[in-house]
């Protein structure tokens, strides 16, 4: 405080005095960065949860909604067709819901759409020149980077506020994304974190579903017997350690508690949930379209075992998968093969096990794509298409190669959401912007959080400032989406 400076500035004394007053009170007593839940005068009312588990299916790299869940007028590939005539590159197909058509290649999802809600009006902000990981940061934390404090991932918020479903299973599990050896990995790490909640609420990362079991097993090459003996001897050394007088210190105590928790997970029955080899072969095969498909299977097992929040990603690798800067049609056809069967199977399996009621499955992406427009109409963002051409000359030109933020598709299954419901609408012609019921990241988060029983105004105090789960606590759940 600079209140000791003498009244040299132009401010009047009373104002200065007053401002000093504003700082009083609950003078911060925790180190910066250690969050404390805010207690309002009236306790924060959390909504009654309609879901106990959340599975986020992340279409990393920008899934084009006209090619998937919001098909438009179809223009087949033909040499010489003007690019600007193309809105999408697949014909549409019927779904089990009368008024909803989606894109060819998603026949399995089309058959389970009566279990969920399709949103076509998700709008994300245009942040200027596109950097995927920055939009992903925004989507996953609710905040646009850079930020002055480390923002927690949505999964960390849910893990922190709702706690574990089962203490033996880490509450926040992140399946399918490598954080080393891929482009923008530093940027990915920046939001794949518990942020100011610390690592207790950070993600348990399982980049390769078939290797997941290794993360809850003794280290490679160590038998369980050796593992248990090692633990036993460790406890013995601990008992024999001459520093008994330190044992009551909280640093000491919390350290031992953490060790015991970890050992409990490594010895629990639930660890079998991480082992895909225990799955019957036909089921394994049904999911096995690749890493994403097996990720869905792993998510199903972990949800059943008691994980609270699970993300399964198609994995973000610059210029791969959904990140189609060229040859989009061919790539998207393959991506649909990868996601269609496992997503439908996941929904059916959850339903069959009676879990869908209390499990919210969300499918989302950082933004959509368009053949012509980068960002939004009128944006001066740099065009990043690698296959620019005014007319179709080769297959490589055929696809939606520009990042589009004006509209996007989201699926919500189970967890208290309406079934067979369509929300929002986009223009029939370019620009394919939202024409009805736009829903922002903030309000989509508020909706997901409300389903999970978390008030969008929930805040923690960080560096003496409140930090809200939705920006400034302003998120509002879209009630219309709830059954």
């Amino acid at each position, binding site marked *: 405080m600079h209140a000791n*400076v003498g009244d040299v500035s132009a401010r009047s004394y009373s104002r200065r005095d007053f*401002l000093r007053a504003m700082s009083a009170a609950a003078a911060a007593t925790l180190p910066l960065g250690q969050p404390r839940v805010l207690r309002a005068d009236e306790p924060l009312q959390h909504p009654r949860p309609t879901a106990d588990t959340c599975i986020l299916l992340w279409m990393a790299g920008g899934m084009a909604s006209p090619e998937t869940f919001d098909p438009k007028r179809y223009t087949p590939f033909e040499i010489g067709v003007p690019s600007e005539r193309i809105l999408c590159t697949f014909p549409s197909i019927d779904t089990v819901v009368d008024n909803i058509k989606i894109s060819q290649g998603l026949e399995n999802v089309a058959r389970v759409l009566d279990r969920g809600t399709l949103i076509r009006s998700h709008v994300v902000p245009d942040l200027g020149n596109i950097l995927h990981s920055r939009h992903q940061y925004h989507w996953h934390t609710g905040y646009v980077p*850079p930020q002055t404090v480390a923002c927690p991932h949505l999964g960390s918020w849910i893990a922190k506020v709702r706690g574990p479903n089962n203490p033996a299973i880490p509450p926040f599990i992140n399946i399918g994304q490598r954080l080393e050896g891929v482009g923008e990995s530093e940027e990915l790490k*920046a939001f794949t974190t518990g942020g100011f909640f610390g690592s207790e609420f950070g993600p348990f990362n399982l980049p390769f579903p078939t290797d997941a079991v290794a993360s809850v097993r003794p280290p490679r090459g160590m038998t369980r017997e050796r593992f248990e003996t090692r633990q036993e001897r460790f406890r013995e*050394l601990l008992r024999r350690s001459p520093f008994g007088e330190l044992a009551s210190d909280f*640093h000491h105590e919390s350290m*031992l508690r953490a060790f015991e928790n970890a050992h409990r997970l490594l010895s629990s029955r639930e660890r079998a949930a991480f082992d895909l080899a225990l799955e019957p072969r036909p089921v394994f095969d049904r999911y096995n379209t690749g890493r994403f498909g097996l990720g869905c299977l792993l998510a199903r097992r972990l949800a059943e075992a008691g994980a609270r929040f699970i993300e399964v990603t198609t994995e973000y690798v610059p210029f791969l998968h959904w990140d189609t800067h060229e040859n989009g049609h061919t790539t998207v056809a393959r991506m649909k093969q990868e996601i269609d069967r496992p997503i439908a199977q996941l929904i059916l399996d959850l339903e069959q096990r009676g879990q869908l009621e209390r499990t919210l499955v969300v499918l989302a992406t950082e933004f959509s794509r368009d053949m012509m427009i980068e*960002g939004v109409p009128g944006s001066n963002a740099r065009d990043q298409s690698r296959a620019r051409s005014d007319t179709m000359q080769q297959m490589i030109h055929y696809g939606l190669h520009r990042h589009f933020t004006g509209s996007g598709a989201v699926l919500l299954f189970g967890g208290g959401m309406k079934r067979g419901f369509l929300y929002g609408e986009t223009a029939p012609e370019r620009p394919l*912007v939202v024409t009805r019921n736009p829903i922002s990241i903030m309000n989509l988060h508020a909706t997901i959080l409300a389903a999970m029983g978390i008030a969008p105004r929930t805040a923690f105090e960080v560096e003496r400032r409140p930090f809200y789960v939705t920006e400034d606590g302003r998120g509002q759940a879209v009630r219309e989406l709830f059954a």
Partner: protein
Amino acid sequence: MLSRTVFLLCLPALHGFATPVQAQASKPIDFAHDIAPMLKARCAECHTNGKYKGSVSFDTREALLKSKVVTIGKSKDSEVYQRITNPDKDKRMPPKGEPLSAKEIALFKRWIDEGLPWDAGFTFKVTAYVAPLKPRQPALPPPRPGLEHPIDRIVDAYFQKHKVALPAPLDDTAFLRRVYLDVIGLLPAPRESESFFKEETPDKRARLVGKLLGERRAFADHWLSFWNDMLRNDYAGTGYIDGGRKQISAWLYGSIHDNKPYDQFVRELISPSAESEGFIKGIQWRGNVNASQVIELQFSQNVSQVFFGINLKCASCHDSFIDNWKLDDAYALAAIIADRPLEIHRCDKAMGKTATARFLWPELGSIDAQQPKAKRLEQFARLVSQPDNGRFTRTIANRLWQRFFGRGIVHPVDMMANKPWSEDLIDYLGVYLAEQKYDLAKLMEHILTSRAYQSKPAILEKEMPGEDYVFRGPELRRLSAEQFIDALWMIGHAGPPKAAAPIKLPEFEGSVPPERRFLRSSLVNADALMRSLGRPNREQVVTTRPDQLTTLQALDLANGQILDDTLARGAAYLLKTHDRSSDLLLIEEVYLSALCRRPSAEELATAQALLGSPRTASGMADLLWAVFMLPEFQLLR
């Protein structure tokens, strides 16, 4: 104090829907932004902070309700509302100045009708403590035998005043381990420990402190992490992808190694050369950025946090609600570095005003806003480190104290406006640093040779957050990620061959034993284990690391592949180098290396069982693991 802050608040420019349709959200009353500024401007003078005209207090929500002028949910029945809308000038509130505007009245009404929302903990009452700016040399209390050191004279008087028993002196073993890890971040080699224990001169501890501070290579390897965290410097990280960030590694390492005087060090960061400009250049992500996060405001936030323990993050978006810094202050600092006129934005909305370059404390001197940027930065750098600025030396002295004791004299370390547990002590240390010509090594030596530092730890059953904190001695501290991993690498000879940091590393001093000559973890990129153990993403300024182990971290220690591989390499090395030693000697070596002591007979038996008979590679690895997992190893006592 709990305002909705922020910086993060309102990002209208970014969030405007790119569609023909606007989302309609009716915004509930926001106390911090809608109400508090109005109350503070129009009601506070007469109705807060000890002055409660008409027995009406706006200090807190409770006080206001007790004043019986508000009926929650019913503005029409509330006297305060009747008063502000009263057409009779003599009865209307506020009595001075213009009546409240129609908009303000409408907000007031909604505020009452919506249940009088009030941010938790917020009060208008003045805090009693005002941190001084000027340096102050306190009078030293008289010495008592064994407590002649100036720090101990102050601390002893403090103990007496607070009726705290003098903590017991630290034994040689704990001191040795503590001081090695604190000064150079490493454990002593077994032979160093033994010769220290054998030595019987009265000044052996002081000489050890001097020797360690003289090991400049090891010292720099260790303190690099402290500064990397604080200055957001790393060898990989966000921003580098687009050239939106620049390393200062070589400059930083060199400055630490050469013990550059702290005032000069800071001047070179603020008014930089090409080698040191990375800090003030900040981190830029591709794309548009909220007004409160542009590079100029990053400068303002980071400079004030790192060098003065001031949080300008609130004030980067609007006048702060948690202290008295204002939007203008944050922008005035930002304007020092701005290349073009910097328009002030409140919550991302342009205010139609341009910021003028100015330092936080105008009485320390001014900056000529007409000068070009390089000149302004030069002037600023001089103001920051000028001798009348006591906050400058107190802030760094407090950070060092926190590192050595687990908790600052002012707590937390980034809130230097808070009341220290001993004003005399923090003031003394600040003045001492200035007297020693800003020599940080001298200040460290001064602290480390005190009896206060060489005391047994105070056992805390829980965290002591409150203002009623009483210093009772050093706290137990957790090893940092780097200290933990360096210990592993040293004992098992298991470190990497190559640095990631683009630094030309100086030679080790001649006295450094072979065990301690290796490439340290501070010089390589963070891997999953280091991150798990608390090495931060250096996106934000980090001044303290988490002090408790979490379950996920413990899991990485229980079965993580990186640790397991490191242990296996270490075990192979130890077996190879000890193939002729007895099991007893091998185990003793492990205990001496890791814990600076020999094992008891009981411990020896357990260790022997772990090692196996005959010893095996896996037994050796398991022994290392078990010793490394002991709190005695992972905590600094």
